[in-house]
């Protein structure tokens, strides 16, 4: 099986590459369109700023390439957010694969004595899991998150977490999957999720 991690200007590509190696899969990190199109599995990672990342993808026509892929594709963190309709981070239109916008936690009202911090950094519970992506992963399993922006719940939602309010942390539409947390940093269940993705 050929697994390709998309290389662009907002990557945690090394961490994803090493996590795949730990579960016995050699992957290629590439921004070459033909290499991406011919892969069996495509992973779209991301740590960075959304509008800068979108501009980079558009310049190289990678936005259209990704949206037209037919093999299983997994977006991680910013990768997942860029697969949504629009983000308030840099106020930019995204790939529009998942039918939900991305907004900032910081814009949500908080009335508690100790308001929750933004970004959310750490381990939080995922529930309402509805996908083979979560095969053998119990409801309310903890995954590792680092993010300030979140996707709203929509018809593509396959996993939910609560931070200030319930929001989407996993999405699926056709061959496209996305997770807000970092499976590559989420201990054993994170590695199991990556395995599940490769087994889809």
């Amino acid at each position, binding site marked *: 099986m050929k697994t390709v991690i998309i290389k662009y200007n907002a990557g945690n590509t*090394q*961490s994803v590459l*090493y*996590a795949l*190696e*730990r579960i016995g899969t050699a992957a290629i990190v590439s921004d070459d369109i033909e290499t991406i199109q011919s892969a069996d599995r495509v992973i779209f990672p991301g*740590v*960075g*700023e959304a509008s800068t990342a979108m501009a980079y993808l558009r310049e190289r026509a990678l936005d259209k390439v990704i949206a037209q892929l037919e093999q299983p594709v997994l977006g991680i963190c910013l990768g997942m957010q860029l697969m949504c309709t629009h983000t308030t981070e840099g106020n930019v239109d995204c790939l529009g694969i998942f039918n939900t916008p991305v907004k900032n936690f910081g814009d949500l009202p908080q009335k508690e004595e*100790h308001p*929750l*911090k*933004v*970004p*959310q*950094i*750490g*381990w*939080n*519970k995922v529930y309402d899991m509805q996908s083979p992506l979560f095969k053998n992963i119990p409801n309310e399993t*903890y995954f*590792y*998150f*680092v993010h300030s922006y979140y996707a709203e719940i929509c018809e593509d939602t396959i996993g939910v977490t*609560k*931070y200030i309010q319930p929001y989407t942390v996993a999405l699926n539409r056709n061959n496209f999957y996305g997770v807000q947390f*970092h499976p*590559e*940093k*989420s*201990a*054993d269940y*994170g*590695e199991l999720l990556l395995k599940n993705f490769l087994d889809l």
Partner: protein
Amino acid sequence: MLCKRIIPCLDIKDGRTVKGTNFVELRDAGDPVELGARYAAEGADELVFLDITATNEKRKTLKELVNRIAHHINIPFTVGGGISTVEDVSLLLENGADKISINTAAYKNPAVLTEMAKQFGAQCVVLAIDTRLEEDGEWYVYLNGGRVKTDTRCFDWAREAVERGAGEILLTSMNHDGTKQGFAVDITRQLATNLSVPVIASGGGGNAAHFEEIFLKGQADAALAASIFHFKEVGIPGLKQYLSEKGLPIRL
């Protein structure tokens, strides 16, 4: 609910883990990758690797070590020790570190925090502060591993650092470090409740009740300890079970 994090800290010298109190009587404690992997398997939420090597070979060995850690450990980790420039950070992140921690170099050149946050995101810039409560009742910032006192108050520096781009504060109380009598509740609470970023409390953790106290009273987002884990005085699974039973949000 977001969990309170338990973070073992590993001191590294010449590529090996060292154990000791206050840099005295350092003993070899084996391969940092093996020890880190054991802590990860036991339920540590993150790891901090602090390089205390003082040789010119440092950069190369640290880079190689970080790369090996990143290959073997499946939880996030922070690397600190002698980091001062954007290039230092870039090298460590490229080799798989999730965050870096910076201390004296940021105090001497605060603009570097902004540069690092702009280039890599605030989430990977951890500002470490060593602080001591003086007789005048104020907490002051210390530099160079606690050897050099400044006239800057801890809270003032922490607030400025966050404004400049620090995404997390690693706060070590020199009064409490090594005592095993509990963490510094008041200064931790002041930072944790007034700053917009997470605060990791460090120094003084000796038993499970101390961790409970720093999370509940100190409002810490995470707590860090070293020797009590290395010497197996406190086990991570038992500690997390205890905190969970006390009603704290903990990843079991």
